[in-house]
């Protein structure tokens, strides 16, 4: 089987287009595919009008914060934006659409998209403003929100160890939304902190099997780390 390793330009050119929906892994910095995002942010004219799914909005000049600042994003689906005041200002000015969802439901909607489940019931946020305007359903006398699955054209995620077949493993808390996103998109580009030989990851300990992965790219030294070191 031909290996899946590509360089970033190849992978991005093959799978990402303006106007697409794109899931981006990460919670805080762990799991964020910084090298792929930086490539997109360095080519703002080629990749715009994106619909993003990301747990949080990173910081203004970091990760998807760069895409937001460049106005390459038309809609952000997320759970938390508390750390990006520039984005909050953009949102308040109506320049970008933002949909906030409780974090576990956000993860569950993505997972459902990957698992071929079009919708599920949930009582999370039922008696809050989150429920306003959402489809409801009654089951055994209880009221629920009908939560629809999320599915996107492409996922970009960062994993700690990846083999040539695309099998992925994450360290510590870096896994977060990456596994669910890796199952819920037509194509998945994995940014690998370390590429290992196929067979080195123990089969039982693989977090995301390579069958979901279209391409593996090597993580580059991080710009903000370089700057911090300079």
């Amino acid at each position, binding site marked *: 089987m031909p290996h899946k390793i590509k360089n970033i330009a190849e992978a991005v050119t093959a799978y990402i287009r303006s106007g697409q929906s794109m899931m981006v892994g990460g919670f805080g910095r762990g799991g964020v595919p910084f090298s792929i995002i930086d490539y997109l942010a360095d080519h703002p004219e080629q990749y715009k009008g994106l619909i993003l799914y990301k747990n949080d909005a990173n910081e203004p000049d970091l990760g998807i914060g760069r895409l937001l600042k460049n106005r390459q994003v038309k809609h952000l689906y997320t759970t938390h934006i*508390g750390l990006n005041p520039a984005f909050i200002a953009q949102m308040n000015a109506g320049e970008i659409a933002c949909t*906030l969802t*409780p*974090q576990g439901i956000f993860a569950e909607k993505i997972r459902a998209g990957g698992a071929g489940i079009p919708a599920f019931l949930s009582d999370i946020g039922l008696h809050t403003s989150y429920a306003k305007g959402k489809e409801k359903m009654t089951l055994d006398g209880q009221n629920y929100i009908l939560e629809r699955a999320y599915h996107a054209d492409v996922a970009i995620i960062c994993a700690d160890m990846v083999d040539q077949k695309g099998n992925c493993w994450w360290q510590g*808390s870096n896994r977060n939304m990456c596994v669910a996103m890796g199952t819920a998109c037509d194509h998945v580009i994995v940014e690998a902190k370390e590429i290992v030989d196929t067979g080195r990851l123990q089969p039982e300990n693989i977090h995301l099997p390579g069958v979901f992965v279209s391409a593996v790219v090597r993580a580059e030294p991080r710009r903000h780390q370089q700057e911090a070191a300079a």
Partner: protein
Amino acid sequence: MSFHRQMTGKDEIILRRAAQEVQQGQTINLGIGLPTMLPIFLPATIDVMFHAENGCLGMGKPVDNGTPDYPVIDAGGRACHLVSGAACFDSVLSFTIVRGGRLDLVILGAFEVAINGDLANWTIPGKSTPGMGGGMEVAQKAKRVMVLSHHLDKNGRAKLAEKCSLPLTAPGCVDTLITEQAVFRRQNGRLTLVSLHPDTTLEIATSPFDFKVPVAQKLETWRA
């Protein structure tokens, strides 16, 4: 990202009192801000597991000189050690733990708490909407919700209100509210003042309220 905060004297009173509420063997989730500092005040004999939404059970001490790039961070972005027996997983399993009702205790901050246990801590419309993150789920599904808060906000208004004016995180979820002046527990559906800090009096502690706060017939001794 990080949510560091300098600890004040009031913070310390609240945290010392909150530590007394923790029970052996509990699974606990700590909200961003003040609650994150609780572990410092737990006695070494208490063995609990801290859950972080981003995917760990068994968060330990902060890492000295830890950067946000450290492979284990808590939900507030702080680099942390893992304790022995910790498990790491993804967001999906993390919230299976939350919605499955496996959290014994969640300790949160608040914008407002209402006397009926309503909690508002995720948005101040038109001003600040950090987002609910995992807050709605932990508040709605934990076996016990404890809020840590200064008795008064920056404008001198009581954090405990007759009714929340802000959009709710979850209705009727707060079981315990701890401020530097008092402990409130939900009894018969209403947060009831059950204990007073030795430095205050019932009159001082209840004076900021423009409504009648239920007070227990017999107050508990303040523990810390």
